[in-house]
């Protein structure tokens, strides 16, 4: 049975540089990396030293405060380097691949016929637990919790976001097995949301409640879907998993191997047309193997333009990202950029430029802030792009003030930074709103837990 969710408020940005729907084998990286900062709040404890030989699926570090959550090597090879940042914080664990593809054998398992405890143990031991995120707070899940439901979004609405239907086309068998396994983790339901493209691929998946989602971005955000389907109340936990990672979990149960395949789409106006494709790669791949050396006038983003992370040459695709986006840096001055109805090639959700007259135009945005940070003055613009029963401006102010009771009342448990990405985009005052929400969530973690 499926239910329809129609989102009305939001904004679908059309950008230049969509990836062509052609799946090619990615060139194998010499090095791969797992980046602990991708897992918010996780304090890594290394279990292997530099130089250790690893199989794909061998544990490399675990989370200090939730030690059941293990992080394993995506490929077989040698642990080459542990890169540390300020205060000796581990920034990257780099593994040199040996191209042998030798896997640690976890043993095949039929998830549907196995008890819940063993399934859970298998998922977290193999490193697949890292794929599971918890709401509220948008952090890595704690296996000791029992979530009230699990949510999977296969809806692509973010700008230049890869098409889930295309990614999952040849992975339906693994996907179904992954669902069978995830079912053991919750007493509640598994909610799978699909758009037109992914519905064609996933409509026969069993054991899920299917939701047809339509509307502008952020309709594809799992947080918006949770809010519409079964909102989170204080004290409750729900888990979310990215759609392709469900197939990795399924593959683990089918073959006994942890083989974190990741389809990565190379997108963005600065990516040459011939490399703008979908690549069949492995988690943590080196970006230069995919896009070559990138000029400093180009911003490399792991993920999409709204929520991704800034990378530089030689770094690695983020753990949860399935796109590499290249857009021009915008470090240029613009004479009289504030004049209304000028610079119409820069998109604006307000109508102070004529860009709204051309809803089908594809934009080529730069990373320019298009202004400077100011006090919050304009009202009403945030509500237009946040389809939630939440007062965004008031919540942001509560987060800035660190007022826990207000944050709770205004729905902090239901939001994640990514849900505020569009709010940040349209904000006239150019505040870093995703960061504000992240800090607010962090405060809730320490104060409420």
């Amino acid at each position, binding site marked *: 049975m499926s239910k329809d969710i129609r989102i009305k408020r939001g904004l679908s940005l059309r950008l230049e540089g969509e990836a062509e729907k052609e799946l090619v084998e990615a060139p194998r990286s010499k090095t791969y990396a797992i980046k602990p900062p991708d897992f918010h709040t996780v304090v890594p404890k290394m279990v292997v030293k530099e130089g250790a030989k690893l199989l794909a699926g061998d544990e490399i570090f675990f989370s200090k405060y939730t030690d059941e959550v293990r992080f394993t090597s995506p490929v077989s090879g040698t642990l080459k380097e542990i890169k540390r940042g300020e205060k000796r914080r581990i920034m990257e664990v780099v593994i040199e691949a040996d191209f042998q593809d030798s896997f640690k054998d976890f043993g095949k398992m039929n998830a549907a016929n196995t008890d819940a405890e063993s399934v859970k143990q298998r998922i977290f031991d193999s490193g697949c637990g890292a794929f599971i995120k918890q709401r509220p707070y948008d952090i890595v899940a704690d296996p000791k919790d029992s979530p009230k439901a699990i949510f999977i979004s296969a809806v692509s609405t973010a700008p230049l976001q890869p098409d889930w239907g295309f990614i999952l086309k040849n992975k339906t068998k693994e996907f179904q097995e992954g669902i069978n396994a995830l079912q053991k983790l919750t007493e509640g339901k598994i909610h799978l949301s699909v758009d037109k493209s992914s519905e064609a691929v996933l409509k026969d998946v069993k054991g899920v409640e299917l939701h047809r989602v339509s509307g502008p971005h952020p309709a594809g955000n799992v947080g918006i879907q949770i809010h519409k389907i079964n909102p989170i109340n204080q004290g409750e936990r729900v888990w979310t998993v990215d759609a392709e990672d469900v197939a990795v979990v399924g593959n683990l149960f089918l073959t006994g191997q942890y083989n974190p395949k990741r389809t990565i789409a190379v997108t963005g106006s600065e990516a040459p047309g011939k490399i703008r494709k979908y690549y069949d790669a492995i988690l943590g791949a080196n970006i230069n193997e995919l896009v070559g050396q990138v000029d400093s006038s180009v911003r490399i983003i792991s993920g999409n333009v709204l929520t991704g992370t800034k990378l530089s040459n030689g770094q690695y695709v983020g753990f949860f990202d399935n796109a590499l986006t290249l*857009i021009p840096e915008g470090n240029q001055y613009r004479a*009289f950029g504030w004049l209304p109805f000028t610079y119409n090639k820069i998109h604006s959700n307000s109508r102070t430029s004529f860009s709204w007259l051309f809803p089908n135009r594809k934009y080529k945005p730069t990373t*320019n802030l298009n202004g400077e940070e100011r006090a919050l003055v304009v009202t009403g613009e945030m509500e237009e792009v946040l389809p939630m029963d939440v007062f965004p401006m008031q919540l942001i102010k509560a987060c800035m003030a660190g007022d826990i009771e207000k944050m709770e009342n*205004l729905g902090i448990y239901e939001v994640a930074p990514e849900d505020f990405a569009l709010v940040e*985009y349209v904000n006239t005052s150019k505040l870093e709103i995703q960061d504000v929400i992240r800090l607010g969530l962090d405060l809730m973690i320490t104060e409420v837990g």
Partner: protein
Amino acid sequence: MEWIRQRLDKIKEPFGKGKKYEKYAPAVNAIDTFLFTPNHTTQKGSHIRDGVDLKRTMITVVLALIPALIFGMWNAGYQHFTQLGEVFTFWEALGHGALKIVPMIAVSYAVGLGIEFAFAIFRGHEVNEGYLVTGLLIPMIMPVDIPLWMVAISVVFAVLVGKEAFGGTGMNILNPALTARAFAFFAYPTYMSGNQVWVSEASNVDAISGETILGTLAAGENVQYGVMDMFYGVIPGSVAETSTLLVLAGALLLVFTKVGSWRIILSAFIGAAIMALIFNSLPSLGIEGNGLTNFPWYQHLVIGGLAFGIVFMATDPVSAAQTTKGKWIYGFLIGFLAVMIRVFNPAYPEGIMLAILLMNVFAPVIDHYVIQSSVKRRKKRVKTATGQVETAV
């Protein structure tokens, strides 16, 4: 442009981080960012940003004010020459008004921006653009003959007490432009009301009838202007508020660009119309009423500063209600109260100023109750959720 850029970079050098004049950087930056949108790029969060910024928003409001302002200049001359019975051309009228009004604008901007710059340097933040609008609004809502020093003192009061005392742009409770007018109104009443102040240089001449329509009505006399005169604005009044037609033209731009809230504008006009209709219906209930209560409701909408206040000052996003529902309530009450104050309090012939200031004070309360209804919904959901768990156990 490239040459100016290079010069600017050179001028800015001693104001850089760790340099001698670092403290004064906000002042230089304000001028620089006026000429060039800076080269700042996104560092955290969303990598791309909308083309709009606060400068553009504020300039849009200034653009919306320009038609009413130019008309106001012409009307100042028109009122002056017709009341004196002199013959004049369009340009003479405009010139007469401009000579009066441009100095007021200059004083307002010089004093106000001076304070803004000083506070930006003192507090170490960039200069906010809000004063671009406030500084133009203040002369537009003053009587044409007000001495410049009074404009200056009103501006000082508005910016210091109305805005900076609360923490600066974005934190003020009252609309700064109206704070300035209210200050002048109570501090210098003889310059702000009566029948001598609304026509340029009227006080020098005897036997001039420079009364505003509301003043005439409050005095219990008959109005000598036609409805279309009121709508076009060829009537005495504050500098630029008389022409409902051109105010509506500005409103169109504000609503079209989504800079001004159409909800506030519409609900305020509805509120004013309803209040006026209630007064209009008094005779049918057997109550006689007076000139003000019996003044037709649609004429109530076009006279005085009602339209100007609703379009340009009630919609000030900082001092207005911030929630969607709240905006409806806030706007409605402004219109409703404005007409009520007009009718019930002949000492304040125009009620819009006090109505907006009053609702500015109540806007946070309105928002509080709107938000509280959502909070209650959320708490109720928690209750039912825990209730279900209990019954399941």
